[in-house]
């Protein structure tokens, strides 16, 4: 698929999350391709700070006009920060999916083996 932005410095899940790795803290959002597929996003159900998450299980829920989609955690860990600004401006994910991160997780295990680099993700689209 042409036109979607895929920054080189991030990792990607086949379920269309992007992951920025900074030591044992990872930042998670959804990709430009994902926001494009979802259409106008109207609400993001954020996790709570301190919440334990499991790899492959739901981290957040994104509600768009025509559908609702889960955002999956790419590793086990604990949520240390959420992007509270999304509560009022969920549509900023449509405007810039990579600036509009969803949550930061302090990981307690390995990252999902399914994560790929930018080239690998482009090949999936």
């Amino acid at each position, binding site marked *: 698929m042409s036109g979607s932005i895929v920054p080189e410095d991030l990792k990607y899940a086949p379920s269309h999350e992007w992951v920025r790795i900074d030591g044992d803290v990872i930042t998670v959002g959804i990709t430009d391709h994902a926001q494009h597929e979802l*259409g*106008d996003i*109207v*609400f993001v159900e954020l996790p709570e700070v301190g919440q334990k998450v499991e790899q492959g299980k739901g981290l957040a829920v994104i*509600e768009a*006009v*025509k*559908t609702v989609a889960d955002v999956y955690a790419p590793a086990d860990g604990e949520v240390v920060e959420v992007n509270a600004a999304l509560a009022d401006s969920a*549509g900023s994910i449509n405007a810039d999916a990579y600036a509009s991160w969803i949550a930061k997780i302090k990981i307690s295990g390995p990252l999902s083996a399914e994560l790929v680099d930018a080239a690998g993700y482009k090949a999936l689209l």
Partner: protein
Amino acid sequence: MLHDDTGRTLFEKSRPGQRGTGEIEWDVPRVGLDTLVPAKFRRKKAPRLPELSEGEVVRHFVNLSTKNHHIDKGFYPLGSCTMKYNPKVNESLARLAGFTTLHPLQPAETIQGALELMWRLERMLGEISGMDSVSLQPAAGAHGELTALLVVRAYHLSRGEDRRKVLIPDSAHGTNPASAAIAGFECVTVKSAPDGRTDVEDLKSKLGPDVAAFMITNPNTVGIFETRVEEICAACHAVGTQVYMDGANLNALVGITRPGDLGFDVMHFNLHKTFTTPHGGGGPGCGPIGVKSHLSAFLPSPRVENHEGKFTLAKPATSIGPVHGAFGNFLIMVRAYAYILAMGPEGLANVGHTAVLNANYLYAKIKEGMSCKFDGPYMHEFVLDGSPLKALGLHTSDFAKRLMDFGVYAPTIYFPLIVPEAMMIEPTETESRETLDRFAEIFLEVLRECKESPETVHSAPHNLPLKRVDDVKAAKDLILTHPFE
């Protein structure tokens, strides 16, 4: 248009002194309100009711009704889910005074006819579905799902088994996981295979002694028959898992096969989808459940029993108890009963065949333009893959809005989730060949427009009272009030 004044409310149109009827001559002495109702119960200020003549009120509502799409006006391409023909005679029968003047708390001896109707309807649904016992109490399909899962849970607990998981395919109706979650189960998703059917190997890998039930729709939501259903049932039964059939698509099977014969333990019926009771509007509805004999003792109470022609109400100790006030929505049952009697066994035997024929006839007419993701054969519905529209800068939602410009309703779109840009079409057994031909023409015309003048489609609707609605604003900032003053 002089009389097209529907943008204003009745309150805005109100003028003091306007009345529907003239002054009535009283032939009994008039008694003031103050002698009938103590002052403390009377309102201080008169209610503000609109004041209009009868003609103005009639025109107001007739004009509004012409702006809506409705089944008496035009075709719905996803019939049984959205709106489909309901025989008008059902309405006359449901309005018989012998039914409408009953009170649910009357002694059973005084409502024998109503109880007999319910007893007979339960048996008719049982015969049609191959189930041993039926409860008519649940108020809708999703309520039936919840009730059935509570029955399944009670059954397992009676055997000392506290099974916590329910398996559900990724093509399922969203109500399946919702019902399972409300019933206290953990939902586990089963994948679809590349042919659109359940991935039976994935199912088998997830089955186990902790699985209470597997919920499956057959034919499934992409309109394909689950051909391995008997193998699925056997695999589930081998580990004690109950197999639940979501009966949303039962009209495809009526007269052809029966869920009970295929191995299902429990199912729900949507009376509005298969047995011509009214659709939509939030009810009242009826979503009966049918079960095999090992689950019968757990059905909701009260149960109608027939003791040699005398009908009584029983509350079995093992029942999960009532799930609705009194007996459920009785007048909906009257409509379904009337339909089944009117159709008779011969008529019902044609329902499934006609539903399947209509869907496949329509698909044959439009498949050159747009095709399905999964190969058929299709049953009573088919799901088109609208993703080729994206190359033209369009989406399924644009296509659906443009269809409405031609006087037909839009199909269900973006469901099921396993088909990108999905467009689900089910003409149902009640539409004529001429209607299907006309819809196919409209469909192909809109497809031509997508290629030749995509902007027309992108900015649709053009011929409807409302143009493009701002979906984002509607989802985030919906205002459903109107300033009164």
